[in-house]
């Protein structure tokens, strides 16, 4: 984990391989999820992160164990990058008791308090006020941790975004507002939803330190988010970081993508963060082509294991249906 405040991440070969592994794991995990969905193993809504891997992996590098993460319904990438077990995520999506949320949440509601991962929040922008509150608690408790809140550019049109930015700045609380701008709120382009499409202009209006970065470039994301987190830790104040990114797959599984041209998708695919980062590692001689194949093989095995874990999971007994409505020790 980076400790220095230096601007340019100086990564070692080992770190490079680890980061590539993380991005590939997310990519293959998402592809496998799509497949399991078509087989009806996964149901409900399934939102895939393919194309946006550099953001999750880049940002989580700058976070410490004690930091809180809140995310959206497109959160598999964040959960995996944070270190959640792929098997527990897959089991969750299969609806099995062994899932990270005991199967009660599904794809959109991954929770793991052990790694301070607070969802998996599926009402667009609904988690921003909570993130501010968690940061407020840290401040009141004298803790030095940062609350990192991922959300999409669609959320920035919600009233709660503006309420939360105002509250965070007003109260000076350590929250990182991390906007993943993938240009489409479901299927509606940014230009149809925001009067001011340069979202990074919205931060200064609240007196919030703001930055933006190419979200397809892992090293750039790492650098920008490290800078943001360092600022927050130093000042205790919020920071707004906009990552420009793109999802290669449809919004969810049942999406005919009527709203964008194939050519546009193809153009963005040239920016695919994984080949881009692989090339960088190859160029810097931090990795060999064989080693990349080895990582692919390792990822494949991890995903097979995850599927096996999920398949072998248990269905919760229907008699336990009403668990977790109230705290069990209190009202049984």
């Amino acid at each position: 984990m980076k400790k220095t405040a230096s601007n340019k991440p100086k990564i070692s070969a080992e770190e490079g391989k680890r980061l590539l592994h993380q991005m590939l794991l997310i990519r293959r995990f998402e592809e496998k999820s799509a497949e399991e969905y078509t087989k009806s193993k996964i149901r409900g809504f399934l939102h895939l992160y393919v194309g946006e891997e550099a953001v999750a992996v880049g940002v989580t590098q700058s976070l410490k164990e004690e930091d809180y993460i809140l995310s959206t319904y497109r959160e598999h990438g964040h959960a995996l990058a944070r270190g959640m077990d792929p098997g527990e995520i897959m089991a969750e999506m299969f609806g099995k008791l062994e899932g990270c949320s005991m199967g009660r949440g599904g794809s959109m509601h991954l929770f793991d308090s052990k790694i301070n991962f607070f969802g998996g929040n599926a009402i667009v922008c609904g988690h921003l006020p909570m993130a501010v509150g968690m940061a407020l608690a840290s401040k009141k408790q004298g803790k030095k941790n940062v609350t990192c809140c991922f959300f999409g550019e669609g959320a920035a049109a919600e009233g709660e975004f503006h309420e939360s930015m105002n509250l965070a700045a007003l109260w000076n609380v350590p929250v990182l507002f991390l906007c993943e701008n993938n240009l489409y709120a479901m299927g509606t382009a940014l230009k149809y939803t925001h009067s001011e499409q340069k979202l990074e202009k919205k931060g200064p209006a609240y007196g919030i330190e703001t930055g933006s970065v190419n979200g397809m470039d892992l090293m750039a994301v790492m650098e920008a988010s490290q800078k943001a987190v360092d600022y927050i830790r130093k000042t205790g104040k919020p920071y707004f970081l906009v990552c420009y990114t793109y999802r290669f797959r449809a919004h969810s599984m049942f999406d005919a993508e009527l709203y964008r041209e194939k050519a546009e998708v193809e153009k963005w695919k040239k920016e695919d963060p994984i080949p881009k980062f692989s090339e960088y590692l190859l160029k810097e001689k931090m990795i060999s082509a064989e080693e990349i194949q080895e990582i692919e093989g390792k990822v494949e095995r991890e995903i097979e294991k995850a599927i096996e874990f999920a398949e072998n999971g248990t269905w919760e007994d229907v008699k336990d249906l009403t668990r977790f409505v109230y705290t069990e020790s209190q009202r049984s």
Partner: protein
Amino acid sequence: MSKYINLSYRDALKSAIREALKNDERVFLMGEDVGHYGGAFAVSKGLLQEFGPERIMDVPLSESGFTGSGIGAALAGMKPIVEVMTVNFSLLAMDQIINNAATLLHMSGGQLNVPVVIRMGCGIGRQLAAQHSHSWEPFYAHVPGLIVLSVGTHEDARGMLLSALESPDPVILFEYTSMLNLEKEIPEDAGAVDIRQAKVLKQGKDLSLITYGTGVYKCLEAADILAGEGMDVEVIDLRVLRPMDEETFLTSITKTHRALVVEDAWRSVSISSEVAARIMEKAFYELDAPVERLCGVEVPIPYPKHLEDASVPQVYDIVEKVTKMLRP
């Protein structure tokens, strides 16, 4: 025997908040105008001076934002008391309360607790017209995961908040602004109260009056009048609207065999609908007459006093209804 003191509903609420702030460092009060203004209804007057701005936090007019922040702070180990000035504005925070506070424990498979207490001034009776006279108890009582309490008496005004703060799960407290100035005697040492059960406030054998909120004192008054006419009614304050304590009113019905449910909320899909249904489901063969209801008239609450009064059950309505039921 403990000493009794005369206390207004407002002061009972306030002394509960003060006690909670003194008892537990994690407790803080946040809400619109709770600090410098002294509370929209003067419930928190003086507390800013006593506890400082870290414990008594004024917030901007952003109900969803600050209610969500309270939920977040609770997630992260604090015990926030969120004051939503009135229940009418809570509609702007409903997403936070229902989609976050009420669901997180369940969605996370039991990992996350949200020990937030959300207080709301509510009710009708001050000529505030349609947008400021809502009775939203049924809305919130509909939601599993919430504990919904109705503060119908001074003892509960003094005690419910303290018990609510002990709950690991989110609690909604309905406080009735029309009762703020009302003074009653309560034991000097009154404190935390049970928040699981309804309460029989007056024993009786002819009929069970089941109510909550502002209905409580109205029903007690009606019961007094009825006693003078030789009709002996039992008065039950539901108190806990969710999870509803049905045991208390079902037991009462097995004694009285007749029930009248009284509430200010609109009749359709209300607390009284729920009570009536449960009586039918679980005490059908104890009924000697159909369960009756007195509820809010289904109209946006009008401004003129006489129309406002006619919109919700009054004492004389209760007396008349009971008389009709007992002496058809």
